[in-house]
């Protein structure tokens, strides 16, 4: 594709490239801010004007992971020398690492919350995409009585802003004991994502020619085998795209996580801001937590990028 261009078109092209670069920089600026803050010493985090050149350190990540408390008095030289390097980093900030009676290091709330986020987001994504794929296949391939109505009903579950039902959900969850449990959040997020997953997957399923399965049926396979051997590989693009969207929704969800959980099953989103409130906030630790929190989505999206790009345009150019 190298169509003939006039001079003005070429100039316009350059301008467009510059404009795209500027917009990209604007979009990336907050991420840079978070990333740089996560590696700053605490005293440089809030300087005005902002410090751009500094020696990066990983003490914010260490502080993020362990439970700390203010030190009343400076540690002795022996105490300091005896401590491992990461504990010295905490001591440098005027804090000490909290240990239990057996001398074991106590972890902060963050690793737990992060694990909770992973458990809830991955499980609910697998459930929503799995159920959505099967449902979409059913709608796409078989005559379902009242198909249009059922599909509309599925979609209509998205029409209410979820927070509207937060209070009744909270009361119901309390009654059945799902408050502050992994399954509570998993069920909730699966329910959110299911309608989206069904609709998106239905579009992809409709695009897979029926003849593929019919060929497999005639070739001696059962419908179930045809589904797993033929339809599923063909739907991989759609599944990847749907999974990314479902995962992002579940991973980022804040309101319900805040209301429905407090300790055992709390996810990272409500936890990170809660660290701001206690005393003078250590912004470097919060930035470190935020940066780590960004990674899984970035990695997941990066791994599926080929599928995702195809998947997004796939839906866009449907006849």
């Amino acid at each position, binding site marked *: 594709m190298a169509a003939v261009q006039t001079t003005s078109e070429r100039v316009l092209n350059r301008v467009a490239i510059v404009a795209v670069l500027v917009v990209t920089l604007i979009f990336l600026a907050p991420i840079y801010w978070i990333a740089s803050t996560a590696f700053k010493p605490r005293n440089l985090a809030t300087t005005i004007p902002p410090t751009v050149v500094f020696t990066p350190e990983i003490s914010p990540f260490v502080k993020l992971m362990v439970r700390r408390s203010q030190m009343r008095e400076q540690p002795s030289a022996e105490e300091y020398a005896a401590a491992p390097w990461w504990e010295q980093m905490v001591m440098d900030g005027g804090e000490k690492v909290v240990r239990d009676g057996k001398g074991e290091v106590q972890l902060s709330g963050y690793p737990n919350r992060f694990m909770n986020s992973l458990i809830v987001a991955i499980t609910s994504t697998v459930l929503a995409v799995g159920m959505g794929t099967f449902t979409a296949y059913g709608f796409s391939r078989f005559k379902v009585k009242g198909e249009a109505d059922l599909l509309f009903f599925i979609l209509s579950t998205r029409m209410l802003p979820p927070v509207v039902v937060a209070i009744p959900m909270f009361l119901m969850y309390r009654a059945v004991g799902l408050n502050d449990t992994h399954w509570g959040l998993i069920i909730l997020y699966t329910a959110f994502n299911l309608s989206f997953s069904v609709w998106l997957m239905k579009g992809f399923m409709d695009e897979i*020619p029926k003849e593929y399965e019919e060929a497999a049926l*005639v070739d001696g396979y059962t419908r179930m085998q045809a589904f797993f051997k033929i339809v599923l590989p*063909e739907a991989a693009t759609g599944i990847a795209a749907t999974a990314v969207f479902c995962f992002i929704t579940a991973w980022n969800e804040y309101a319900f996580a805040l209301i429905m959980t407090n300790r055992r099953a709390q996810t990272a989103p409500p936890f990170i801001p809660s660290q701001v409130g206690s005393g003078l906030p250590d912004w470097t630790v919060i930035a470190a937590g935020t940066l780590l929190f960004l990674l899984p989505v970035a990695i997941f999206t990066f791994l599926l990028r080929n599928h995702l790009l195809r998947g997004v345009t796939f839906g866009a150019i449907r006849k």
Partner: protein
Amino acid sequence: MTQIELRNIQKFFGPNQVMKDVNLKITDNEFIVLLGPSGCGKTTTLRAIAGLETIDEGDILIDGKAVQHLKCSDRDIAMVFQSFSLYPHMNVFENIAFPLRATRMSKGDVDRSVREIAQVLRITDLLDRKPSALSGGDMQRVAIGRALVRQPKAMLMDEPIGALDAKLREDMRAEIKRLHLKQGSTTIYVTHDQIEAMSLADRIVIMNDGLIQQDDTPAEVYAHPANLFVARFVGSPVMNIIDAGVAMNGTGAKVTLKGADEGFSFPAELVGKLDAAKGKAGQLALGVRSEGVIVSREKQDGYLPVEAHIIEPLGAYDIVDLKIGDEMLRARTRTGFVPAPGERVYARIDPSQAHFFDTASGNSLGIRL
């Protein structure tokens, strides 16, 4: 050794009956073509035999065994689809091996079978490619390979070359014929292209509106169409079909086309045969193919004067529209025989190529002169 028989098959899609009492017997190694316009029920018939479509009444027998309640996977039939339906995520080898993998054949046997069939189809060097990297003709070869590889009882083909361009279609037609002669499997082939049907079939089954219109050899279907539908559907250019009146005139019969002043001469026995066939005057149509209209530039005995209207030069011959009475008669002439439109020429009809139809029922009266 496979025989397929359809007995009194009825099939409805909602209120529409798409197969009306279809009866058909296919013998071993026969190449049958189901021919008809779109929506005539030919593809439904094929899919019913494959098991992709249920039937509402009747029996489908394969080797004498009723199979209409069996799943497609249990009928041991292979099918080639118009869209080829090659699995895009598998390479050519895997595509062809796919039906064998369902049978739990050993790895070595699968490999051997696939390579054998690839050799027959001359696609051995394509085995590692993905379907997206194949040309249309090669895709179809792979699809045929996938159908043939497990040596099914019968092979069903649903417009297998309909998606190819004209030149490739011709090549593939010859290839399918070659394969059939070589492999000799019972084949049912669906198409709406009468040229494909004529060139491939041992027997053509013409369908319209869910009904079998005629079931005969290509030559017979062409030479003696059973009714007006078949007459119009088979042959290019389309057969001339014009309402006609028949009367005795001295020693011979005269066939006068609608709106014409004079009639064409026919042997006297026509009248007797018409009477025997209970063909009533006024409900009669004459059918004659363009090669049955004989054109002369000079006035001769038995020729009627006509005016040339449109001339279509087709290279090997011309098709000339001749105006006679209210109607046009299309004749096939030598190239350049009629020099220009508007020319006055003379025409007669070859009685041995004339067909007579009852316009009320549409059926041929079966008169051969």
